[in-house]
């Protein structure tokens, strides 16, 4: 028999509940990756690309207008000089306005290029990451499901062995199911179900339940510690 000790089945049950919560967090976190990518992709395509396209058209118009004004101003300056009329001293102001409009237009053009580049990059780099997340999501659903099933199986075996309702389980030591005859096991359950948690002493070597049971105190009974069945496929399999 394997040296084993289960002082409180609630330890398994509590961890099992944590595992259920963990599985839910994993599902929520990993399954949301595709939606997250879609939100950003839509934001780039629908919001940003449209916005900068419109901005580009608008800023191009502003630039062309400013350019015409500058050309007119240039013409006025030169023409006025030739006709000796009231001269426009300089087209510098129109030139500054035109340069500013051109910079604004170029900025919109760069933004649009950037948005398109990111749309492509998200497809190329983001999609594989989403696939990874989905793959981990599926695997974790399966692995966590199996782990929870295994913990349920262990609990079922412990509770079936003790044959008491879950709420009444407050034990310090369980004797080996291999070491005790069926009648004795039933006696253990009966004894334990009526015992208070605090009243039972905890020990690694000499369980109180053993001492209180007739027939369980035989010298050859190797039941100093509890035996939780190993996670074997067959529920009735125990440590040997």
């Amino acid at each position, binding site marked *: 028999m394997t040296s084993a000790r289960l*002082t409180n089945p609630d330890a398994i049950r509590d961890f099992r509940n944590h595992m259920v919560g*963990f599985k839910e967090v994993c599902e929520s976190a*990993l399954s949301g*990756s595709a939606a997250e990518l879609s939100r950003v992709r839509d934001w780039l395509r629908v919001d940003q690309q449209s916005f900068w396209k419109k901005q580009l058209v608008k800023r191009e118009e502003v630039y062309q207008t400013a350019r015409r004004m500058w050309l007119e101003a240039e013409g006025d300056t030169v023409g006025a000089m030739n006709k000796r009329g009231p001269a426009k001293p300089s087209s510098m102001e129109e030139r500054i306005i035109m340069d500013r409009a051109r910079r604004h237009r170029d900025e919109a053009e760069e933004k649009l290029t950037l948005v398109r580049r990111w749309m492509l990059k*998200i497809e190329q780099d983001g999609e594989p990451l*989403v696939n990874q997340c989905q793959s981990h999501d599926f695997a974790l659903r399966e692995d966590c499901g199996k782990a929870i099933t295994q913990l349920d199986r262990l609990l079922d075996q412990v509770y079936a062995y003790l044959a008491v309702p879950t709420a009444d389980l407050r034990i310090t030591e369980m004797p080996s199911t291999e070491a005790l005859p069926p009648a004795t096991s039933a006696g253990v359950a009966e004894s334990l179900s009526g015992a208070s948690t605090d009243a039972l002493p905890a020990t690694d070597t000499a369980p109180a339940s053993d001492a209180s049971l007739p027939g369980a105190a035989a010298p050859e009974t190797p039941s100093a510690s509890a035996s939780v069945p190993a996670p074997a496929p067959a529920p009735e399999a125990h440590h040997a």
Partner: protein
Amino acid sequence: MPNVSGDDALLEKALKDLSAAWSRSSDGWQDAARTTFADLHLQPIEIRARHGAKAIKQLEALLAEAMRQCS
């Protein structure tokens, strides 16, 4: 502009909580079945979850950079 979810941090925290719960369970459960469970179930889950958290983190970094540059 969409928000970055922070799911990687959520997953990391859940992993840490699970690990702490597993340590706590040793107070009442110490036997071969526990060791077998850790080897067959818990460790692969932890490894898988870490890889998952890493993938989410990379994805979120990518999306955050896209939003930063394009806004």
